[in-house]
């Protein structure tokens, strides 16, 4: 371990650890797949605070899954360091790596359940690999299935479950070994919006109850907004910005972030001289509404969620620049 690389001054201030040892620390990490000219990740320096729900967002090919594969030990960095709970993941013996892996939960986009095992059998698998006796692992699996709302489905095979139910089994399986770190790579991308919301809620709830560090990979800003406390934006293998979700979405500092925010911009008719702006407000109290009215803003779309109110404003072009001030005021109000 290099002391210099670890010194806090080299880390982005918005991502400073909340406790002494962060859950994850990427230090100048580079990863190039064999036969590829461009690295999938380069010079990645990022801290994932312990106990956070951190979103990793970026366009297709940005390197999000590569980041997850590094954390889950499916790949190792070519250069730089990845510290997991302070331990250099690149320096682990294969036994220590497997030990580490058995305490990292992974949830997949396409569930990756074993088709020839029941829900119960899927959840017991990680424990079976660790040599936990049958009775104990089945008791634990039943408990977990009940926690994800599938208490009555233990004997069903994946083919007999809906997409959302399969993902719940996937989550129960990821939690079987009582991990401190849970990784979800596009865990809701294969599901309809309502089912997705349920899965995100479950992940958030489990993260709180179990004091997990949750890493959620997604290409959808709604997911980041609905379920994360922190967010890192990747583009073309590089970190473009990171910080607390509310602050970062309120003041996107980078064009890529803005583009991702605009990805679900509403279809609206703007009057001549009006521009559309997207802001995340703490609330829509009479104070906030009055402030908005003072700017001549029209609320086009507002959606409330745990992180605040997600608002689309049609603003007079001349006032668009004042938004930052308003947003600060509104968030602080």
């Amino acid at each position, binding site marked *: 371990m290099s002391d210099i690389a670890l010194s806090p001054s080299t880390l982005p201030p918005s991502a400073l650890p909340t406790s002494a040892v962060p859950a994850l620390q990427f230090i100048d990490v580079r990863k190039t797949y064999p036969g590829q000219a461009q690295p999938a990740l380069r010079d990645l320096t990022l801290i994932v605070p312990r106990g956070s729900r951190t979103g990793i967002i970026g366009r297709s090919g940005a390197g999000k899954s590569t980041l997850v594969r590094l954390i889950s030990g499916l790949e190792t960095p070519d250069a730089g360091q990845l510290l997991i709970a302070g331990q250099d993941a690149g320096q682990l013996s294969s036994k220590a790596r497997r030990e580490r*892996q058995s305490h990292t939960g992974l949830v997949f986009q396409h569930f*990756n359940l074993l088709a020839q*095992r029941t829900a119960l059998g899927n959840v017991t698998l990680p424990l079976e*690999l660790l040599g936990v006796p049958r009775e104990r692992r089945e008791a634990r699996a039943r408990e977990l299935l009940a926690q994800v709302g599938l208490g009555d489905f233990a004997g069903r095979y994946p083919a007999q479950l809906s997409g959302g139910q399969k993902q719940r089994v996937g989550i129960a399986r990821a939690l079987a070994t009582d991990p401190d770190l849970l990784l979800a790579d596009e865990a809701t991308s294969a599901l309809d919006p309502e089912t997705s919301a349920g899965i995100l809620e479950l992940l958030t709830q489990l993260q709180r109850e179990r004091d997990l560090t949750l890493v959620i990979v997604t290409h959808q800003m709604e997911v980041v907004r609905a379920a994360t406390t922190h967010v890192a934006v990747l583009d073309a293998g590089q970190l473009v910005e990171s910080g607390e979700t509310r602050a970062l979405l309120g003041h996107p500092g980078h064009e890529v972030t803005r583009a991702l925010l605009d990805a679900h911009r509403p279809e609206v008719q703007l009057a001549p001289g009006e521009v559309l702006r997207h802001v995340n407000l703490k609330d829509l109290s009479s104070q906030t509404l009055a402030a908005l009215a003072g700017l001549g803003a029209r609320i086009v779309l507002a959606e409330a969620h745990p992180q605040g109110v997600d608002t689309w404003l049609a603003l007079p072009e001349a006032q668009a620049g004042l938004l930052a001030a308003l947003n600060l005021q509104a968030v602080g109000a």
Partner: protein
Amino acid sequence: MSWAEIWPLLWQATLETFQMVLPAALMAEVLGLALGVLLTLTRPGGLLANRPVNRVLDAIVNIGRSLPFIILLVLLIPFTRLITGTSIGSTAATVPLTIAAIPFVARLVDGALYSVPGGVIEAARAMGASTGQIVSKVLLPEARPALIQSFTVMLVNLIGYSAMAGAIGGGGLGDLAIRYGHQRFETDVMIATVLVLLLLVQGVQWLGDWAASRADHR
């Protein structure tokens, strides 16, 4: 010939066929499974990816499968004698049958294991499973229906091969058909033998299909 005469002949020949085919099938399944697993693991991108080893195994399997059984039978006579102490009889016939079936099984097993989705293997790897655990707890169980099918195909093939093995004194149904039906123009025996063979193959296939579909939860 009367039925009273044909019946004991048929019974005896059927037993001999089983005596040749069953031990050969079991041994070939064990060895072919091992070879098939090695083929899958050493593939490029596999868990134990190793191109040279994979090439060599692949070549052995291909040669084994392209060699006509009747030639293998003759080529293996010294080897058979070495192992069983004789080169005639059903015990002796088991040796070439086993050898012929191994590459056949290996290829089918390789195909069956290859069809296990990569995501499932990745999930197991991410749980910290060792290669041995991935084979025993993921690859083989997930491919079970296809493995049962491949065992069935192998059995049917061995029943066919066993008729040829009869030519070196292995006995069995094929031998009976040739000795009586063909050489002595006993058409009744010929027809009865063919019927028994047909029933045997149908029965094995039906049983295999049933077992495979029962084992499949997809």
